[in-house]
């Protein structure tokens, strides 16, 4: 069974921030049980953008949920910033989220009654902290939202909403940012802008990102691409063009 890093992993600049070891996830019981993950191990090095690709039902979303501590594996272990999270009680997990994890969702998940800026600083407000002025300005500028800061989500386009969400994920400088189909709900032009923004945050801020996607174009911006099928990592590429990705994908589905 092909597991673990085939080929040498990219040299970790500052070490590993996320590590998964033999993760399995089974839904249901008995005859109707479904194995979404059947033993996945991986490491994400700091400053990397890792894309997880696969056809629908491959287990890529489940993998991300487990890596991010939203779901618990049936077996195996996951560590984030050196801390084993699979057995953490809720309070500790919450603290971990505040410090180490940022989220970008497919449907943005902004709070409709808050302005763009209020949404962006929300993770800090929740933690009872004050945003650092320069960092906030930097984020507003780099996301192009400076003149939209006081608008509510309903007054923003889909692309703008997703940029608010990305700024929200970056505001606390998380150890790792999880993006769940970040372009899944956007048109292709806007998708391009969002992908650029994600890439920008890796280049400029050294942000580590794990992105789940089924779009070849999205995967093409990644430093590493993991291909999932039937609950297993079946291939891995250190960077690839969209065409290459498509080729791998079609080989997987055939």
């Amino acid at each position, binding site marked *: 069974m092909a597991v673990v890093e085939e080929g040498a992993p990219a040299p970790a600049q500052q070490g590993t921030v996320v590590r998964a070891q033999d993760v399995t996830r089974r839904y249901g019981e008995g005859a109707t049980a479904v194995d979404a993950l059947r033993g996945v191990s991986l490491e994400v090095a700091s400053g990397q953008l890792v894309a997880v690709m696969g056809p629908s039902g491959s287990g890529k979303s489940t993998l991300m949920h487990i890596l991010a501590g*939203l779901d618990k594996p049936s077996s195996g272990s996951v560590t984030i910033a050196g801390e084993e999270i699979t057995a953490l009680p809720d309070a500790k997990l919450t603290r971990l989220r505040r410090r180490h994890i940022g989220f970008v*969702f497919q*449907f943005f*998940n902004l*709070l409709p*009654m808050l302005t763009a800026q209020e949404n962006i600083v929300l993770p800090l407000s*929740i933690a009872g902290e004050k945003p650092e002025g320069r960092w906030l300005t930097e984020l507003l500028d780099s996301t192009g939202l400076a003149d939209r800061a006081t608008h509510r989500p309903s007054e923003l386009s889909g692309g703008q909403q997703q940029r608010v969400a990305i700024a929200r994920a970056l505001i606390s400088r998380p150890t790792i940012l999880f993006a*769940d189909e970040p372009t899944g709900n956007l048109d292709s032009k806007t998708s391009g802008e969002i992908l650029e923004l994600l890439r920008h945050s890796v280049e400029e801020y050294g942000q580590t990102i794990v992105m789940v996607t089924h779009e070849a174009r999205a995967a093409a911006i990644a430093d590493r691409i993991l291909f999932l099928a039937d609950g297993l990592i079946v291939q891995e590429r250190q960077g690839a063009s969209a065409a290459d990705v498509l080729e791998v994908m079609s080989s997987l589905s055939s």
Partner: protein
Amino acid sequence: MIGVALKGLLGRKLRAVLTAVSIVLGVAMISGTFVLTDTIKAAFNTVFTQVYKNTDAVITGKSAIGGNANNGVTPPSLPESLLARVRGLPGVSVAEGGISDEGQLVDRNDKVISRGGAPSLAFSVNPKGDQRFNPLVLTGGTWPTGAHEIAIDSKTANSKHFAVGDRIGVLTNGPVERFRIVGTVKFGGLNSLGGATLAIFDLPTAQRIFDKVGKLDSIGIASKPNVSAAQLVAQVSPLLPATAQVRTGEQEAKQAAKDTNSFLTILEYFLLAFGFVALFVGAFVIANTLGITIAQRMRELATLRTLGATRRQVYWSVVLEAFVIGVLASVIGLFLGLGLAKGLNALFVAFGIDLPQVGTVFATRTIVVALLVGIVVTLIAAIRPALRATRVEPIAAVREGALLPRSRFARFGPYIALAVTAFAVGLMLIGLFAGGLSTKLRLLSIGVGALAVFIGVAMLAPTLVPRVARLLGLPAARLGGAAGMLARGNSIRNPSRTASTASALMIGLTLVTLVSVLAAGLKTTFEDSVNKLFTADYALTSENGFNPTSTASEKALHGLPGVEVVSGVRAGSGKVFGKRISVTAVEPDIASVIDVKWTAGGPQTPAELGATGAFVQKSYAEDHHLHVGSPIAMQIPTGPTLRLTLRGVFDPPKGGSPFGDVTISAARFDREYPNPQNLFAFVKTSSGVTDATTAELTRALARFPDAKIQTRAQFIHLQESGINLLLKLLYVLLSLSIIISLFGIVNTLVLTVFERTREIGMLRAVGMTRRQVRNMIRHEAIITALLGATLGIPIGIVLALMVGKAIDYPAFTIPWTTLVVFVIAAILAGLVAAIFPARRAGRLNVLAALQYE
């Protein structure tokens, strides 16, 4: 996080308003009650301080057996000779005597002027004497002097269009007498006397018409300078007979206020009870509305969790939201209460209780209690939804249509519900039947038990709903086409939601049913009693059947052609075996019009009572181990003790009899009691009930405007009118909690429509008309309302049975017609509740609905 909660509230204004309405109404009831009773209390206090403003001491009659006019005992009058002796005392500077009694004014159509069962007060004034004791103020004309002059209160003068110079009738102990109006008056400092009327005469006239020549009802005294009120009282005391008392003006005012306040306190508690029931129902509605809101905000709450919010933060954000709603709703309710107080007063006036008023009193206590209760109830109601919110897992942020995880205890739900219900019933049974409990403890355990029953049944309801709703939805599914079928399905698909919505309605319907069943029992036993006892053709009572009538009106019927028997029953009080009891007196021929069952003595007993005979009812004889020949020593309010001998014992039917605890002969009664009056009189004629006889009797009573001749059926009807009135009042007051539960149905439906936006869009896209969508919502509302009725009515009947058993209630009758009316009313209420949600659902734009995310 606080900001998030508050902004979230602003973002969901409609939902916030829907949640708040139930609290607003409940708090308004509480604040309205306080405002109303405080205002009335202040009015009475004003009257009494006015009356005794310049009085240093006051002498009044004192009932030898205790009690006063407030518990139906008329204190005896004072001898007029006392006044001269009081004036002779060294400490007295001025003393004035006066009469106070009751005299009804009669309008131009010979109808008694009576508003809301309020007293018809009559006072004497002494225009030539010192005016310092006179609490009245002339608003027009002059004070009455001489045998044919009267002053009346300006409210009556205005409303009945009497002016100075007009003649007006006054009814006291005999036929109507006419007086010329020379002045109009009012109580100083009072906006309204309520329904009370005033008839003012000079002293000799008052003494004559109230049969108190040579007597006074009170003597007001002002002391000389340097003589304190206490010294004055000490000087006066030795002069007084046993049936008189002297108090300082201040004491007298306090005592008078205390007597009325105790009545008003009962009224206050009575109304507050309805306020608390309303708030209890409101708590159900809030809990349900918040619960649904939480379910709809799952993704939002989950997102907050992924961004690092703790469970505790989520919990407090929900509680904070409820707190803000509670504060706003309570403040609005508090001020709405000011208006509601007017409404309640109007309601009472309509139901015959018209009480005096001063300017509105808005006490600090009202503000504190109303706000506190409103906020606390809201917070308590928020606990469960807030706990549910903490169970939202972060992963719900990325999952479409995630369901709230079941609580760890959910699978024990039905068992806990059963346990709560059993505990509640147990508590009530203890309250109702256990011996040796104080009344307070008893009421507490019944009250808490009843609340727990509601909670228990509400908890059981989700288990029952699917089956019951399927059955109740049958007509909708059969007759309502696709809309009806979907409505039935919808009402079952979230059983706990439907259940708690219906439970709120259940509470109101339970109480309404309880009241109607008890009232029906009371009425049947009363009818049964009258049918057994009433062998006369007619009864003679006052207009309202409750006030006594003069013996003169009875005498007017004696000797009319065809009238065989006219027999009256007098009523008063006495003290026997150290306890105050009701005393009645009968004429010798009473047995031919009232047929009681005798266990000792017999129908001849009333005729053989003589001066010293008495008869009692069976339970009284048993309680005091009396048998024929037993001596009974009965003290009367004027002081003397009558030495009586028991001559007979009768066994009344369960619905009671016209006779009191002890009955003596009318001849003796009339000798001993001042101003004897009839409770009822009964008439037997040779031709029975005919139109001609009725007309003849009515004609003979023309000079007695308050006397009313009635057939047996009319008599029953009149006597029951009191019960019916009380019943209607209770229905109106309980309707508040039903209205609140209707808002609960509105809330649930509005939120459900919101939740199903996409589904409704889909239904419209596949060809459902707006009409069908509206019908679907209506059917759902009706099913919910019927569910409330299905739960509430049976519980109400069972409660009535339990309460009836506990208070040894005479009969248990289920008023089927009334209950059917309740069910129909519930259906109509459901339709009303559906109006707004159905409109919203019908107006949804198909395209927008499908795009909604």
